[in-house]
C-alpha cells in the first residue's frame, strides 16, 4: 500500500541516544526546549533540558537527583514560572524551578511507593480554577495537591479499608471549564477506570476495560468533558464520548486495536482535540483522528439520551524503535512538533506534517 503524500507524514527531525533510562519527556511551554526525566544506571534521577538548535538537539542543562524520576508535568504552573512538577520512585512530589533546579520550590512525600503518573491543571492558562497537581501511585491512592498548601493533599482518593489496593498507573485532569468543576480520571492495573468529581467529591463514573489501563487522557482539560481516551495493556484503546451519559449504558465508546502490544501513551494534539497519537510497546506511533457521528446523542426507547460514538480514522503510523515508547509529548506552541522517549534510551524529536489539513 503506497502512502499517498497528502496524508500526514511523521518526519524524524532528530534523535539522540542517551546513557540512561528515559521515563518521561516534556516540552517546556513557550520555548524550543524540552525536559527529559529518567533514571541513571547508578540508580539516581536525571533531569535534562534539551533545546532544538539548527536542525538538531543540544543538551543545555542537566541535574542529578537522588531518586529516579518517573514523571513530570508543567500543567499546574503559570507561563511566567514554568515550574516542573515531578514524581519519583520514592513517592515524592517535587516542583522545580528549572532556572534554579537544585532545590525544589515545593516538596512533599506524596505516596508510600513510586509515583506512576502526575498531571497538572490550572496553570499555563489551561483550566480555570486553582493550580492543582494530581499524582497516582502504586500504593493505590490518587492525591490532588495544591502547590500553595504544604504537606497535605487537598483531595485523596483511596480504596476503603480492607479492599485490595490496585496499582494506579495513570491519572489525568479534565472537566476544568470553570472555577468549581474539575474531574480526575485514574486508570488502574486491573483495568478499572475511575472518574472522580472534585467538586462533588464523589466517584462519578467507573468502568473496567479488563486489562490494565496504561494511559488516560481527556482531549481537553479545560472544557466540559468531551472525550476520554484510555489505552490498555493488551493493545487496545477506547475512546469515550463524555458528553452524554446514559443512566444505564453510561458513555458511548469506540475501541480500536492498534498496536500488537501495550499502548503506553496517548496524547492529544494541543491544537486539535480530535487528533491524537498513541505510542505502542513495539516502538510504534499511531496517529488517529476521531470523527464525530452526525448526531452525538439520540433518544433511546425509554426517552433517555444516549451518546453515539464516532469513528476512528488512522491517519498515519510509524515504527521508530524495537523497544516500547515510554512517553510522548506534543509541543504546545508548534503544531505537529513532538518529542518521544523510548526504552532503547533514545529521545526523538518528530514533526508531523499536514495536521491542519486533516
Amino acid at each position: 500500500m503506497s502512502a499517498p503524500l497528502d496524508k500526514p507524514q511523521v518526519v524524524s527531525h532528530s534523535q539522540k541516544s542517551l546513557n540512561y533510562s528515559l521515563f518521561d519527556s516534556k516540552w517546556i511551554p513557550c520555548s524550543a526546549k524540552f525536559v527529559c526525566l529518567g533514571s541513571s544506571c547508578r540508580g539516581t534521577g536525571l533531569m535534562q533540558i534539551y533545546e532544538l538548535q539548527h536542525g538538531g538537539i543540544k543538551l543545555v542543562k542537566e541535574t542529578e537527583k537522588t531518586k529516579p524520576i518517573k514523571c513530570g508535568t508543567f500543567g499546574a504552573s503559570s507561563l511566567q514560572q514554568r515550574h516542573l512538577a515531578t514524581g519519583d520512585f520514592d513517592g515524592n512530589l517535587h516542583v522545580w524551578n528549572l532556572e534554579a533546579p537544585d532545590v525544589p520550590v515545593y516538596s512533599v512525600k506524596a505516596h508510600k511507593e513510586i509515583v506512576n503518573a502526575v498531571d497538572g491543571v490550572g496553570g499555563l492558562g489551561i483550566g480555570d480554577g486553582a493550580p492543582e497537581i494530581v499524582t497516582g501511585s502504586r500504593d493505590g491512592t490518587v492525591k490532588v495537591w495544591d502547590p500553595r498548601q504544604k504537606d497535605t493533599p487537598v483531595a485523596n482518593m483511596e480504596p476503603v479499608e480492607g479492599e485490595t489496593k490496585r496499582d494506579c498507573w495513570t491519572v489525568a485532569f479534565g472537566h476544568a471549564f470553570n472555577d468549581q468543576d474539575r474531574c480526575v480520571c485514574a486508570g488502574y492495573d486491573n483495568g478499572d477506570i475511575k472518574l472522580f468529581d472534585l467538586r462533588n467529591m464523589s466517584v462519578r463514573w467507573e468502568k473496567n476495560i479488563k486489562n490494565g489501563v496504561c494511559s488516560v487522557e481527556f482531549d481537553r482539560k479545560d472544557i466540559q468533558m468531551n472525550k476520554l481516551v484510555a489505552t490498555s495493556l493488551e493493545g487496545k484503546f477506547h475512546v469515550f464520548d463524555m458528553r452524554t451519559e446514559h443512566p444505564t449504558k453510561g458513555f458511548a465508546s469506540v475501541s480500536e486495536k492498534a498496536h500488537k502490544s501495550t499502548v503506553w501513551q496517548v496524547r492529544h494534539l494541543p491544537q486539535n482535540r480530535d487528533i491524537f497519537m498513541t505510542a505502542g510497546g513495539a516502538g510504534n506511533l499511531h496517529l488517529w483522528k476521531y470523527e464525530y457521528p452526525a448526531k452525538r446523542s439520540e433518544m433511546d426507547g425509554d426517552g433517555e439520551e444516549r451518546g453515539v460514538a464516532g469513528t476512528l480514522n488512522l491517519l498515519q503510523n510509524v515504527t521508530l524503535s524495537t523497544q516500547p515508547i515510554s512517553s510522548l509529548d506534543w509541543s504546545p506552541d508548534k503544531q505537529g512538533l513532538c518529542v518521544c522517549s523510548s526504552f532503547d534510551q533514545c529521545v526523538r524529536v518528530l514533526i508531523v506534517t499536514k495536521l491542519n489539513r486533516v
Partner: protein
Amino acid sequence: MSLDTISSSPLHTQPASLTTHSVPVEHLDYKYIEKCSDLKYLEKILGVLRSGKEGIYPHLTEFCEKHIEKLDPRSRALRKENFPATSASFSKDEWDQITNELQTWENEIKINDVELNKQLFFCNDVNIPPVRGSNCSIQKVTYSGDKAYSKTCHLPRSYQDWDKFDVEKECAKIDETLTTKESAAIIDDSLLKIQSKIDTTGLTEQEKVVLANREKDKGNEAFRAGDYEEAVTYYTRSVYIMPMTTAYNNRAQAEIKLQRWYDVLSDCERVLQLEPHNTKENRQAAVRGGMGNAQKKAHSGGARGPTANKYKVKAEGEPAAVANRKNLANGSSSSGSSTAQPANGRPDSPGEERTESTCASGALPPPLARLKNEGNQLFKNGQFGDALEKYTQAITGFTEAEDLCILYSNRAACYLKDGNSSDCIADCSRALELQPFSLKPLLRRAMAYESLERYRKAYVDYKTALQIDSSIQAAHDSVNRITRLLIEQDGAEWRQKLPEIPAVPVSLRQHHTAATSSTHLHKENDTQEARFTSLKTEGNELVKKGQYQEAVGKYSECLKLKSDECAIFTNRALCFIKLKRFAEAKQDCNSALNLESSNKKAFYRRALANKGLKVRVLPLEVNPTIQYSVTALLKQQRATGSPSQPRRDITITEVEDDDEEGDAVKSSSDGEQKSTSQTINLQPSNAYEFGQALNAARSLNDTAACAQLLRTVPPDSLPQYVSTQLDGHTLSFIMKTLDTHLLASEPGVVYQLLDHLHTTERFSMVLMMLNPDERRQMTQLFEHLCSVDCEDFSQNDIKNLANKYI
C-alpha cells in the same frame, strides 16, 4: 491449482490442519483470492502470505492486499509498519518548507522565551482561586474522611497468565461488541456553566496572546463538533482576553449557525472597526446581508429587515476595502475549516475568462478593449479588486449590448471572487438582460446565489445553465448538492417551492450536448410525470370510492403540476357534478374543451352540469339537444370528415377513465341509462354492426343508447343499415326511442329518420304485424311530432308521413 469449484464456500472444505492458520495452500492462488469476497478469510490469507510460512510471494501478497483494499479500504490488515519520513520522502520544496517553518518558529519562540524569562514575575495569587477546601469547612468535612471507593475490585491478570497471552486473540475480541454494564452516575448539569469572562489581571501580553488563541482553538473545535453554543462561548472568552478579528469572525460564523443575526451584525461591525479593510469580513458581510434578507423573506419578520439592509449598505460603502480584497481570492481563508463557506474552490478559472475576452475584444473601441484586457490580466493574476475597477471603467465608457454583457459578466466574476455575492448577482442579472441565456453569467449568478444560501434561485440558474450546456460537471455537482440541501430544508415536496425554470430555446443549446441535455431535462420531467400519474390514480381511486371531495383535491394538485391535461379537467368536472357544484363543473368542462375542442366527455358533462344549473344552452349549432350534446359533436365530426366511413373509435380512449365514465352515465339524471359505452358500438360502420348495436340496445331496453345510435346514423342511409332486420319489436323500440329521447330536442332528426324509415325493406309487412299497443305508440309519436314547431318540416309533411305509418 485453481479451486474455482469451492470458491463459494471457502472455509472448511479442506482439512483445517493443513496449515497453522487453517488456510489450505490451494487458496494461496490469484484466482481464488480474486473470487473470494470473505474479508475475514482474505485477511487470514494475507496473514499466511506475510508470515512466509508457505513461501514468499511478493506479487501474490500485493495482489491480495489490493483485493482487500478494494473490499474495505480501511481494513486493519492493510496497516503496515511505516518508518518515519525523511527528507528523501518529500520533494525539495516540501522539505525546505518544513525545515524553514521549523527554523522560523525556533527563532521566534526563543525570543519569546528570553523575553518571558526577563520579566520580573511575582506571585499573583490575587486572581487564583483559593486552595481547595481551605476556606470551606463543609467541603473539608466531606472529604476529610478521604474518598473511598468500595466497588468490587477487579483483579488484574496474573503474571502467569501473561505467558499464555495471545495478542491476536485478545485483539480479535475487539470486533465483538462488548456491552459491559456500567455504573450509573448522576450528573448535575444545573451548574455546568462556562464563564464567559476570564480574570486576566497580572497576565503579560504574551500570556494573553497564548490564552486568547487557545480559547479560540477551543471554539474552533467545538464548532467542528457542532456545538455552536459552546463555540460562541469560547470565542467570547477569546475576545474578552484580547479582541482579535479572527475570533470575532469565527464567532460571527458560529452565530450564523445559531441564526442570531443581531449578534452576527455587531461582530461584523466590530471586525470592521478593528480592521477596516478586513476582506473576509466583507465577504461574510455580503453573505450575511443575503442571509438576513432570506430570513426576512422566510419569516416576513420586519424586525430583521433593517439590519440586513443596513449591513448591505455598509458593505457597499466600503469601496476601499473592495479594492483591497485581492489577496483573498485564492481561497486563503486561514480558518477555512471553521468558516464553512461554500465559496472555496470555485470552478471559475481565469483562463476561461481570457478566451471569452479575446474573441470579443475586437468589437470594442481600442481604449476600452485595452481596459478590458488589463482587467483580464489582473484577474488572471488574482488581483480581483483592480480588475474590478478596470471593468467598471470599461462598462461606464461603453454601451454595446453584447460587449457590455461580457464586461458585466467579467465584473461579476471579480465580485464573485471577492465574495461580494449580491453585486455579483446584480451584474449577472444585467448581463442576462442584455443577452438572455448566456452561460457564464448564469453560472456565476448560480454560484453567488449558492453562497448566499439562496438555494432555490441557485438551483434554477444551474438548471438553466445545464440546459444550455449539460456537460458542465461543476454545475451537475452543485445541482446535486443543492438538491440535497433543499430536500433537507423543504422536505420531499421541495420542487413545488422552486421558481419556474425558464426553458432555453433549442437554438441556444450547445449542439454537441443538446441530446444529453434534453435527456437530463426529461429525467426531471419524468419524476414530475410520475408524481402526476400517482396523483391522478389516487384521484380516480377516490372517485370509485365515492369520496368526491378528496378526489377534487387530488385533481387540483394534478392540475398544479400540469395544467394542460384534458382528462383531469373532465374528471374533476365529474366530481363537481357529483358534489352538485355545477358551476365549477361547467367551468372545468369549458377548460377541457379549450384544451381539446372535441372532447366528448367534456361535452357530456357540461351538459349534465347545465342540466343541473337548469340552464339550457344550445352548445352547438347542428343539434339543439343539450342533454346529449356529445351527439352533436359526433355529427359534426361526420359532417366534416368522411361521411361514408365514420370513425369507429368513439369509445373512450383513456383507460383509467373508463370506470368513472361508467359511474357518470349510471348516475346521470335519467336513471334508466345503463352502462352502454362498453357493450354497444355506438358508431356502426355497416348494417351488421348497426343491427348488432340495435339488438343489444333493445335487449337491454336501453332507449338512450338507441337514441345515440340513431343520431349517429345518417337518416338517408338508415334503410340500408336496418336492411332486412326490421321487425315489429324493433320498430316499436325505435318509435319509443324517438318519442322519449329525440323528439323533444331534435324533432328535425326524428322527422328525417321517420321519413327514411318507411322506405326500409319489409316495412309494410312489419307495419301490418304490429300489435295494438305498438300502434298506439306510433300514433302518439306522430301526435307529439305534430305539436312541435320546426323549420325542417310542416304539418302537412307530418300528415303525409303519418299516412305511410298508420
